[in-house]
C-alpha cells in the first residue's frame, strides 16, 4: 500500500505503483465476490432453502438485487469472480501503457480481445 503514495517516481517506481494499484483492485474485486458468495449462502441458510440451481443472466442479476433475493447475490458473486481475471488483464494493459511499452500493450490487448471473444462466442 505504501507504494501507492510517495514523491518523485522513477519509471520502475511508477511501474510498481501501478502493480500495487492492480493488486488493490484485485483484492477488492475478489473480496467483494467472496463476501457476496458468503452472503448468498447465509441468506439461503436463513430462508431454509438451497442455493439456486441456475445462475442468472446480467439483466436478471440487477432485477434480483433490487428484491434482495439470494439468486442475485450468488450470481453476482460468481460473475464478479469470473470477471476478476479480465480486470487483471485490463490492469496489466494500464501498467504497460504507463511504462510506455507499446509491444506489451499490444500483446496484452490481444489477450483481452480473446477474453472478450469468448464472451461473444459463448452466447452463440
Amino acid at each position, binding site marked *: 500500500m505504501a507504494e501507492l503514495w510517495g514523491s518523485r517516481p522513477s519509471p520502475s517506481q511508477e511501474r510498481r505503483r501501478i*502493480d500495487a494499484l*492492480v*493488486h488493490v483492485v*484485485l*483484492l477488492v*474485486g*475478489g473480496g467483494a*465476490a*467472496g463476501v457476496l*458468495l*458468503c452472503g*448468498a*449462502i447465509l441468506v*439461503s*441458510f436463513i430462508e*431454509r*432453502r*438451497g*442455493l*439456486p*440451481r*441456475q*445462475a442468472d443472466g446480467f439483466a436478471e442479476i440487477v432485477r434480483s438485487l433490487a428484491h434482495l433475493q439470494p*439468486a442475485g447475490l*450468488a*450470481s453476482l*458473486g*460468481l*460473475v464478479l*469472480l*469470473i*470477471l*476478476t*481475471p*479480465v480486470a*487483471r*488483464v485490463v490492469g*496489466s494493459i494500464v*501498467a504497460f501503457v504507463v511504462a510506455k511499452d507499446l509491444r*506489451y500493450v499490444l*500483446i*496484452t490487448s*490481444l*489477450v483481452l480481445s*480473446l*477474453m472478450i*471473444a*469468448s*464472451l461473444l*462466442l*459463448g*452466447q452463440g
Partner: protein
Amino acid sequence: MLFELELFGIAIGVGALGGMLGIGGGVFIIPILTVLLHVPIKLAIGASLVSVIATSSAAGAVYAGHGLTHSKLAMVLEIATTSGAIAGGLIATSMNERWLEGLFAGILIVTAFGMGRLKPDAESSGPTGRLDTSFLDPVSGARVRYGVRHLGIGMGASVAAGGLSGLLGIGGGVIKVPIMTLVMRIPLKAAVATSNFMIGVTAGTSAIIYFSRGYVTPYLAVPTALGVLIGAGIEPRVGRRVRSSAVKRIFEVVLVVFAAQMLWKALHG
C-alpha cells in the same frame, strides 16, 4: 441445503489436499462430483473452473508482493492459453458427456504418474537475452537473474494447457510448470508464480463460456469455490510436513481408482 454443506466440507479437504500435493484441486473435485455425487460432468467442470479462478486470484494476491511472476512471459503465453481455452470450452460444452468422462480418465492417469516426478532444482538458464528478468529469492535473499529458452515450444504447450483447461476444467499447471522449468529453463519459483497468474486468466476465459451456456450453477459452484479457497488457505499451516513419498503414493492410487470409475462411467453411463 445439506448437499451444499456436504460439498463445502469436501471442497475444503480438496483445497488443502491439492496444495499439499502441489496439484490443482480440479483433478479431485470433478471425479468426486461426478462419480460420488452423480453431478453431470459439464456442471462439475463449471464449478471447478470457478474454484480455479478463486485460488489463482488469492495466490496472485500473495505472490504479487514478491515480484516472482514474470508478467511479460505470462502475457505472451496467455495468447496461446486463452486461444486453447476458447476452443476447449466451445468443444466441451457441445460434446457428448461420455467422451468428456473418458478424456478426464486419461488426464487423471497422466496426473497420477506425473505427480512428484518434478525436481525442484531443475537448472535455470541464467540470462538468455530473451525476456530476461530477475527476482529476489524470498528464502536465500539473493537476486536470481534468468531468461527464457524455447519460447516456441512453450507457446505450443500453452495451447494444449489452455485447451485442457477449457475441456476438462483443470488449471493446466500440470503441463505448464514442467514445460517452463524443463524446456524454457526458468526457475521453479518463478514458474509456479507465473503459471498461477496464467491459470486464472485461462480458467476465466473458459468459465465465461461455461457461464454463458448455463453450466455454472450456484448450488455447485459457490460451495466448491469457497471451500477450495479456504482449504488452499489453511494448507500452508498444516501441510508442510506431509510431503513424504508414501502419502503421494496413496493419492496416486486414489487418482487411478478415480480414473477407472470415470472410464466405467464413460463406457456404461
